């Protein structure tokens, strides 16, 4: 059984259908990429999974449990973290407070502290700036914070919405290295990206979304060599 299983998902904004009968699955331990142009519906899919949006039809199962209509905070407590589009860090709280909020669902103090040490190790910059207000961090630092904050809940799966957005090429490489590390450490990753080349280079499998429908799916390698993908998303 797949870890995350989405079946026949329909999502509407008012009368406009943004997602049309989308199905896909994510197996434990995988990095799955979802790529697509602006407005294809990638964010809509992620928000439906984490319960920020309620789909009109379809089912979303996480480790066998139905997520549709479950409140977001309960979904998070099951072991899912979602790094939203635009980072959405708490600008008026410090870096440290943001990280603590990431561990909100964790009961044990020792566990939280040991995860915090790990996060500081992956992102030394966050440790240096732990007392700084998050809103005053640079864009790249805010992205690190958003990732660190998501890791603080020690999730079994992380949904990432365009982690490379607005970052310099050097930084993009760093972020993708970190995503690989996170995955190696045992966390399943569902990655939404516009930077298709980068996403496909680290993903196991991928789905291509076009105006609310999945049009291509396959292993990342296949997609990297697919002519239509090359033309539309890899700029070759």
């Amino acid at each position, binding site marked *: 059984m797949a870890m995350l299983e989405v079946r026949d998902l329909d999502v509407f904004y008012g009368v406009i259908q943004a997602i049309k009968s989308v199905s896909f699955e994510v197996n434990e331990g995988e990095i799955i990429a979802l790529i697509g142009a602006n407005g294809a519906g990638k964010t809509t899919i992620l928000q439906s999974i*984490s*319960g*920020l949006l309620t789909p009109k039809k379809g089912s979303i199962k996480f480790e066998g449990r139905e997520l549709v209509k479950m*409140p*977001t*905070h309960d979904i*998070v*407590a099951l072991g899912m*973290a*979602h790094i*939203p589009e635009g980072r*959405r*860090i*708490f*600008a*008026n*709280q410090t870096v440290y*407070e943001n990280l*603590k*909020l*990431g561990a*909100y*669902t964790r009961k044990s103090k020792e566990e939280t502290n040991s995860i915090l040490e790990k996060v500081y190790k992956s992102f030394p910059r966050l440790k240096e700036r732990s007392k700084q207000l998050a809103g005053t961090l640079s864009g790249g630092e805010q992205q690190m914070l958003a990732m660190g*904050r998501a890791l603080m*809940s020690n999730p079994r799966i992380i949904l990432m919405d365009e982690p490379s957005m607005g970052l310099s090429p050097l930084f993009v490489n760093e972020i993708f290295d970190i995503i690989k590390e996170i995955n190696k450490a045992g966390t399943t990753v569902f990655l939404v990206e516009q930077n298709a080349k980068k996403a496909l280079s680290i993903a196991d499998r991928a789905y291509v979304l076009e105006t609310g429908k999945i049009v291509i799916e396959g292993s990342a390698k296949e997609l990297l060599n697919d002519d239509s993908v090359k033309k539309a998303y890899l700029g070759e």
Partner: protein
Amino acid sequence: MVRFLEQFINGLSVGSVYALIALGYTMVYGIARMINFAHGDIIMVGAYVLYVCKSIIGLPSIVSVIVTIVFCSLLGITIEKIAYKPLRKAPSLAVLITAIGMSFLLQALSLLIFGANPITFPSVIKVSPIYIGSITISGITIITFVVTFICMIGLTYFVNNTKAGSAMRAASEDKPAAELMGINVNRTISMVFAIGSALAGVAGFLYISQYQSLMPTLGALPGIKAFVAAVLGGIGSIPGAMLGGIMLGVIESLSKAYISTQLADAIVFGILVIVLIVKPSGLLGKNSIEKV
């Protein structure tokens, strides 16, 4: 000089009660982005509950005060649940009108139960005054200082240093992001109403100890003054509500003593207008301006 000091102390005492009430407005605004116009009437309900516990049932004063606070807190949670929660996604005008309606409802209920005639209710505070030189500080003033000080310190600690306080600030800033942290935002909003209304209950106890006369509309005046205080300090800001409340009390008291009793309110509102022209977000408010 003695008169000035006495008026100043009096102003601090009145102002700290305004501050307690203003905290309720500002915290609720911070998390629910609404002005809870029924907040002043919680003070009134608190005063009547205290009266019922103390004078009718005959409970000891301290028990009566605790029952009052708990009752107000539960009332706040209930009002939020039945009247405001269903309107979470409604336009803010609908919420505003509902809040005004809730205010009328509470006043009408107390009118129905207790009638329109003022009821005399002697203060439950039996503390003797203290004398410093030729200045007299009444027992009620002393208790007011002690109680409001404890409430403000406690609240500040809670908001800044506890997990629930951090969750409250997170939900005030970004509700979907707070949910993604695993925070139950609805429950957090409920908690804010509980705290704000408990503080209104405390204010009701202090206010009625001072004025000693019960009327269904008694919450309106302190309610509107505290609202002004919250706006003055910067709506949404907790230290702002404390500062705004205390400033308002002192300005009011000194204007009454030295300028004119009739003009005191005009002076208070005049200062509010000036502050809002110079700094539209209030003294300690964030700079983003939002219409209410």
